[in-house]
């Protein structure tokens, strides 16, 4: 299999095969951390780092890793990077680490990373794998940030913690709670699907 071009990798990760809206992966954290934009951004950056580094490492070891234990090796690699992210957050951004709580650790079980390692990095060279990790992570982060924008704006009347709506704005409490995550993701998938159907009518 020929290695796809960097451009197509980026396009696929962010749009065509976007992990959240196309593959419905990483939904757990997408529901949990998207009620505040700052938390979402840090979570997204953490995931981009973990995915890119894990993919690069899995790819670098792809020729020496025995096939039968490759899953164990992948989990070990992913867990190591995620723990590093967790430690660094605790040391340098304690407030955000506190707010994200267990979700940073749960990046380990985020299907996006495992999916990219297994589906792409295992059979491709290091550089494209690294880019693929970044692209998929970015696709995840962008969708989450969009959802967070709506949830924070309607739920708290603020963006990145700065109040933008007038004080008499009635907060939509439901937006802050987990169910709103489901509503927002569903709405988002609906919108993006319709958009795609309009541009490629033959696919519809």
């Amino acid at each position, binding site marked *: 299999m020929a290695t796809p071009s960097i451009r197509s990798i980026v396009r696929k990760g962010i749009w065509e095969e976007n992990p959240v809206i196309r593959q419905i992966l990483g939904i757990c954290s997408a529901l949990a951390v998207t009620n505040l934009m700052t938390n979402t951004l840090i979570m997204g950056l953490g995931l981009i780092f973990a995915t890119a580094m894990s993919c690069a490492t899995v790819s670098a070891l792809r020729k020496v890793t025995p096939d039968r*234990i490759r899953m164990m*090796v992948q989990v070990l690699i992913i867990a190591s990077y995620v723990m590093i992210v967790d*430690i*660094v957050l605790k040391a340098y951004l*304690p407030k955000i680490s506190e707010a994200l709580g267990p979700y940073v650790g749960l990046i380990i079980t985020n299907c996006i990373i495992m999916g990219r390692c297994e589906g792409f990095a295992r059979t491709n060279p290091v550089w494209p794998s690294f880019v693929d990790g970044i692209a998929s992570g970015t696709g995840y982060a962008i969708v989450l940030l969009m959802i967070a924008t709506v949830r924070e704006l309607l739920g708290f009347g603020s963006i990145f913690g700065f109040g933008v709506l007038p004080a008499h704005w009635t907060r939509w409490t439901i937006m*802050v*709670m987990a169910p709103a995550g489901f509503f927002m993701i569903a709405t988002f998938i609906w919108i993006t699907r319709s958009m795609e159907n309009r541009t490629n009518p033959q696919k519809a």
Partner: protein
Amino acid sequence: MKERIRSVFFMFGICLVFTAAVSAVNKINEDRIRLNEQMRIQGLVLNVLQIDSSGMGSDTEIAGLFQKRVRTSTLGNRPLYVGLDPKGQTVVGYAFPISGPGFWGPIEAMIAVDPQVSRIIGVAFYRHNETPGLGGRITESWFQKQFQGRTLETPPPGKRYFTFKAQGTAKGNAELDAITGATETTRRLETFLDEELKQVIVKLSQQKPS
């Protein structure tokens, strides 16, 4: 067979490399993480003891103030922070942590009482997993401030130190405003707050370290 042995050695080797890397990162940042945690607790203790640290910008200033105004002691198996006046001689209050189950996870709080152990001078909820915007509002200042100045009269048997009433209907010393929409959080908070206070207040009244 050879393939299997290779797999075992490969896994062993790679585990060694990665755990070493993670341990190294952890070791490098260990002190910093401990310091962060310590800073947080120190700021919190000063805060509930109503020792003004608002003019303090840097971490070292807060640490200095803590050193001067607070002496760390123990009460049973929990830490006790003895607040001192600016001269560092008379006791101005005692602060201690309490904790218990909330709706989604444990809630941790720091409570400060006056030197006679007769009145609450400050409360701060500092760690919880309650729903943001609902139970999570226990960290809002109106909720925490309503504890200030409440007297700690030993409740009659079967009664609690404090009970929560629907927002706006709380009357008297023993009743506090609940958070609308956070029934579960408030109910659990009421229970463990009472259990913890009953334990601590008795012990603290007997000891009253100076």
